[in-house]
């Protein structure tokens, strides 16, 4: 192995930070979904990297779980976005203003 654990973890942290930036800045529902996907991928990268360096199979197993769960989550999220688009003709969540208080 030419690469060290720290390299992978740094990339993962960078992805996490980018995801948090996206979630805090973007107001487009689909882009926010992108940001969440990026965070989940950062976590998966972390898991597999730790699992490789321990070495232990649990990291890969958990990464598989998390990938499958991300797929389920995206399916639900996108169907919510489609419903919202049908109603508002828009995907910008700053324009959804029926709830206030």
């Amino acid at each position, binding site marked *: 192995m030419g690469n060290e654990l720290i390299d992978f973890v740094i990339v993962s942290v960078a992805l996490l930070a980018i995801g948090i930036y996206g979630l805090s800045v973007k107001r487009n529902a689909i882009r926010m979904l992108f940001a969440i996907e990026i965070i989940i991928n950062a976590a*998966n990268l*972390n898991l597999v990297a730790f699992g490789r360096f321990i070495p232990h199979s649990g990291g890969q197993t958990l990464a598989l779980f998390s990938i499958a769960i991300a797929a*389920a989550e995206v399916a639900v999220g996108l169907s919510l976005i489609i419903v919202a688009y049908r109603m508002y003709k828009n995907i910008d969540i700053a324009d959804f203003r029926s709830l206030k208080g």
Partner: protein
Amino acid sequence: MIELTSTPMILVAILGTIGLILPLIYIAKNERGSNAFYATITFGALIASIGVVIFKILTDNVLPSALFSKDVLVDDTFGGFFAIALLIVAIFTTVGSYNYMKNKGNPAVYYSLILLSTIGMVLIAYSTDLVMLFVAWELMSIPTYVLVGYIKKDPSSNEAALKYFLFGALASAIIIYGISIAYGLTGSTNISEVIHGFAVLDANMVPLALLSIGLFIAGFGFKMGLVPFHMWLPDAYEGAPPTIAALLAAGTKKAGFAATIRVIVLGTVALNMDWTFALGIIAVMTMTIGNIAAIMQKNLARIFAYSSIGHAGYILIGISIAPFSDIGIQASLFHILNHAVMKGAAFIAVAGIIIALGTSSLDKIKGLGRRMPITALGLVISLLALAGVPPLNGFWSKLMLFGAALDAGPVAPWAPWLAIAGVLNSALSLAYYAWIIRKMYFEGETEKRISEPKSVIAVMIFSIIFIVGIGIFPDPIIQFAGTAAPTISLSASP
């Protein structure tokens, strides 16, 4: 390997089978079946499972207290306690939906999702492995994203669902990041091994462990509605169908506390970290902001949403002082059960009001005491219990919480302040609860009585009996909470 006959696996078997069969029946049947048909099946399944849990606990087939095992699940009293509380909430939701979901479309999937979400919540309380915890967490969350947006024609329902989904997905992403760090530090996902690993960590690795615990607090905090992470909560609870809001406020939030107790409390103890003070500050902030914001609301569902934020703060008192006081966790558990019933009943009452009046706005419920006497009575009782008026159950659990805080005083000098903040907040909350009661009973002209939804009446009667009954005889439940509470001091020295 965990046996197939242990409580969690039986629950998965019962609820999962029914949950998967319902949509299949819907597809297979020609006339599609009515709401009542599916509600009855769901109700039966939930009653059967709660029966199983109680039977298992009464026959002493269950391990005492909160234990750890070498497996992903453990069949202990802690899980059983939460299972009972959460199944009661699920039953409330189902029964309330019997009238609420009439003619709303797609009943089969609705009930099936409630069942799936219930499995998730219950298994969180039973799980002793981070992977299991995460998967159960998602099983709890994903169906509720759908359920909150279930009324597709209603823009507010959809908006609520979208916000809830985005924050929920962020929360789970954060949790899995936390798990990844914890796994990396200890090489295992089993919670007991993680905690033992944390306890023997090198000094230079400790900041990473703290980061992991912090991520867990943030992730679980989103679901529990702790204060920096609470912004989605009022919108979601207001926009969601009120029955589902009951499930969220009384169910998923409690499951979040179960996860917290399983992971964070024990993890922090293992790290020998004084996180209790930070948790205490979060507790005070949570209850204060929740209660102050609740005063300014004009909508019943929104008021209850903020009030449930406030109650998350009360529960957190007990958790934050857990290492210093023997009854901290016990009081928290007791309050969790009480709050589940009280808040569940309150939201179901809102559902009844919406069925009858079409709105839950505070202006429209004038004279409700004469128009819908039983619903109003149930609402009043649960409001008084939420405020902590003796001799209702909320009084006893709050008393225990504040007592525990005072009890911890000698060790942690800041702990009594928590009790003071709690008492002040309770007084504050009584103000807006009284405002609602005044609206219902002392305003508006005498109007005709309107028919109340039968299922809501059933929930109201049950909750009145429960609240008053426990208010008068609190001892058995307190004992039960005591057996379910984990003993913190033991696991501090692994």
